[in-house]
C-alpha cells in the first residue's frame, strides 16, 4: 500500500492525475505547460521507460532538469534522437505516438479544444481574445493514438460548444473523426484539478467518471457549461502518493507550473534550477 499524501495543492494534484494517464513504455507527445509537467512526473515515477517527444523534434530526452518549453535545450538532453519537426510529426501521423497531452482555453462535450480565439461578442476576425493558435495541438489531436486534455475545472472553460475548433475531439458525434479520416483514437479523458471525465465512444460525449475527495458531483455539474452526463458509478480519484508529491515539488521547486513562481523568478533562481539538477547528475 503506497503512502498517500495529506498535504498537497490542487495544481500538484492536477499534475499527478495527468501523469497517471501515461503507461510505462508509451511514446508521449507532451504540449507546452502543465502537460509537460505531467509527462516529466510520469517518467520519474511509474513510467521510467516512457519516451517523451516534443515539437522541436527532440525524441526521448533523459534529464533531471525541468522543461521550460517544447524547444528548450532539455528536449535534446541525452535524447535518443535530435530530429526534425516534420519527421517527428510524420511519425505521429504514421501511428508511432501512443498518447498526446494538450490543453486549451475552451473544451466542449465532444472533447474539441479551442486555443485560437475566444469570440465574445465579436467573431474569429475580431475576437474578444486572440489566443496563440494550434501549434502542434491540432496535429496531436488528429493523429496521436489517444490524447488527454488537461485543463482546470472552470465554467468559462467548459462550454457547450467551443468558439473555434483548434484541436478536434469527436467534433460533433461518434463518427465525427472517422468521417474526417482522422487516424488517431481521439480524446480519452479530460483531466482537471477536481474531476476526471472519460468519453463514451458510442456517443462521442464526455461523462463524469471520477471526482476528487471532498468534491461533490453537483459542484462539477455546476462548473460545466453543458448538460453533463454522469457515470452511474462515479468513484473517488486515488489520492496522490507522498512520492508523487515529492517528485512534483522537486521538478517544480520554483512553482512555475504549480504556483505563481513565474512572476517571482530571478536570474539567480534560474541558474540555481540548473545547478541543482547538476548536483543530482553527479550522484554523490
Amino acid at each position, binding site marked *: 500500500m503506497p503512502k498517500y499524501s495529506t498535504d498537497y495543492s490542487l495544481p500538484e494534484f492536477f499534475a499527478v492525475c495527468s501523469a497517471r494517464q501515461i503507461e510505462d513504455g508509451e511514446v508521449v507527445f507532451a504540449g*507546452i*505547460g502543465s502537460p509537460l509537467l505531467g509527462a516529466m512526473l510520469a517518467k520519474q515515477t511509474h513510467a521510467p521507460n516512457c519516451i517523451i517527444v516534443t*515539437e*522541436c*523534434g*527532440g525524441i526521448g530526452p533523459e*534529464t533531471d532538469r525541468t522543461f*521550460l*518549453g*517544447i*524547444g*528548450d*535545450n532539455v*528536449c*535534446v*538532453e541525452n535524447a535518443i534522437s*535530435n*530530429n*526534425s*519537426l*516534420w519527421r517527428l*510529426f510524420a511519425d*505521429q*501521423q504514421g501511428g508511432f505516438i501512443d498518447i498526446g497531452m494538450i490543453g486549451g482555453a475552451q473544451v466542449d462535450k465532444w472533447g474539441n479544444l479551442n486555443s*485560437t480565439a475566444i469570440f465574445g461578442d465579436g467573431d*474569429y476576425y475580431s*475576437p474578444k*481574445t*486572440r*489566443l*496563440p*493558435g*494550434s*501549434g*502542434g*495541438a*491540432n*496535429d496531436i*489531436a*488528429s*493523429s496521436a493514438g489517444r490524447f488527454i486534455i488537461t485543463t482546470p475545472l472552470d465554467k468559462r472553460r467548459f462550454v457547450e460548444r467551443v468558439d*473555434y475548433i*483548434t484541436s*478536434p475531439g469527436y467534433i460533433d458525434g461518434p463518427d*465525427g473523426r472517422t*468521417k*474526417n*479520416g*482522422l487516424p488517431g483514437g481521439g480524446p480519452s479523458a479530460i483531466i482537471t484539478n477536481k474531476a476526471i471525465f472519460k468519453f463514451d465512444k458510442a456517443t462521442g460525449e464526455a461523462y463524469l467518471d471520477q471526482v476528487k475527495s471532498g468534491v461533490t458531483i453537483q459542484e462539477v455539474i455546476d462548473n460545466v457549461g453543458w448538460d453533463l452526463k454522469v457515470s452511474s458509478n462515479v468513484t473517488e480519484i486515488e489520492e496522490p502518493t507522498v512520492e508523487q508529491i515529492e517528485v512534483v515539488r522537486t521538478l517544480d521547486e520554483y512553482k*512555475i507550473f504549480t504556483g505563481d513562481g*513565474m*512572476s517571482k*523568478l*530571478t*536570474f539567480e533562481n*534560474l541558474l540555481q534550477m*540548473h*545547478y541543482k539538477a*547538476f548536483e543530482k*547528475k553527479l550522484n554523490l
Partner: protein
Amino acid sequence: MLNDYKKKPDKRMSLKEAVSTFMFDGCSVGFSGMGGAQVVAPVHEIIRQNIKDLTLMGDSPVEPGDLLTGMGLVKKMEIGWEAYALAGQAPNFRRSVEKSIPLKVEVEEYSNFTMGLRYLAQAMNVPYLPTRSLRGSDIPKYNSNIIETVDPYTNSPIALVPAANPDVCFVHANRADILGNAQFIGFSANGENLARAAKHCVITCEEIVTTDVIRSTGNLTIIPQYVVDAVVEVPYCCHPWNCPYAYAYDIVSHLDQLKTFKTREGFLQWIDEWVLGVPDHNGYLKKVGFEKLNELTRVEKKFCNAPY
C-alpha cells in the same frame, strides 16, 4: 543576379548586409526555430532597417510575430502559433488582432506540422502535400488555402496544404562554413525544409568553422551549401531563447520584456532602448551583459556537451 549568391565561394556577410540585400518592402519571410532557438537578432535588424508590408511565414515564430507586428511591419501572417509559451502570450500580436493596433494583421492559420509540410512541398518542388491533420477542425473553415478533399487512390478524406515559398528565410544553426554548409547539433525543427523552400536562405550561426570541420561530421550537415545564399556569424543570435548545445533559456529576460510590453507605450520604449538604441546585435549583447551570457553558456555545458 541574385541566384549567383548560392555559388559564391565565400558567403560571409554582416547581418545588416544580409537583411538589406535579401529583404524588401512587401516581401515574405520565414524564420527557423521551435519553442527555443528562435532567430531573434535578424528581427531586431529588420526593425532597425524598417522593412515593412511583410508576409511572415512560420510554424511558431515568436519574436518575428510579436515584435514585427508591434512595429506595424507585418501585414499578413501564415502561421501555426504565436505566443511566448511559458513566459506568456504575445501582447503585440493580440493588440493587432483584437484592437487593430498599430494595424490589423491578416492571419492565415495552419498547424506546426502542416506549415512544415508546406515547406517540404516547396523544397521537393511539388505544389502541395496531403495531410491527415486539419480535417474536422475549424482551421480549414477560415483558411480557403487548405483544401479538404478525398485522395485519388483510396477515396478517403484528406486535406491538402499548398507549398510555401518565402522570398527569404533566416535559419539559425550551431555552426556553418563560409560555403554555407549548416550543421545542427541539437534539433533543426523545420529549418531543413524552410531553407530549401525560400528563394534566398540566410544562415546565421553561433560560429563559422572551417570546411574540414564540416567534412569530419557530415551527418550534422542538415543544410548543404547549394541551398544557401549567405552566412552570418551571430553569437547568441537567439537570446533570450536557448540555443541547443550553446546556451540556456534566459526566461527571466522574457518575463521582464513581457511586463514592459503590457502597454504599447512600454513596448515602444523597450524597442527604442534595446533595438533602435543600439547600433547592432553586438550592442544588444553588450547591453544584456556578457557576464550573463557567459553564465547561460557555462550552465548549459554541464548538461549538453557534444563530442565534436
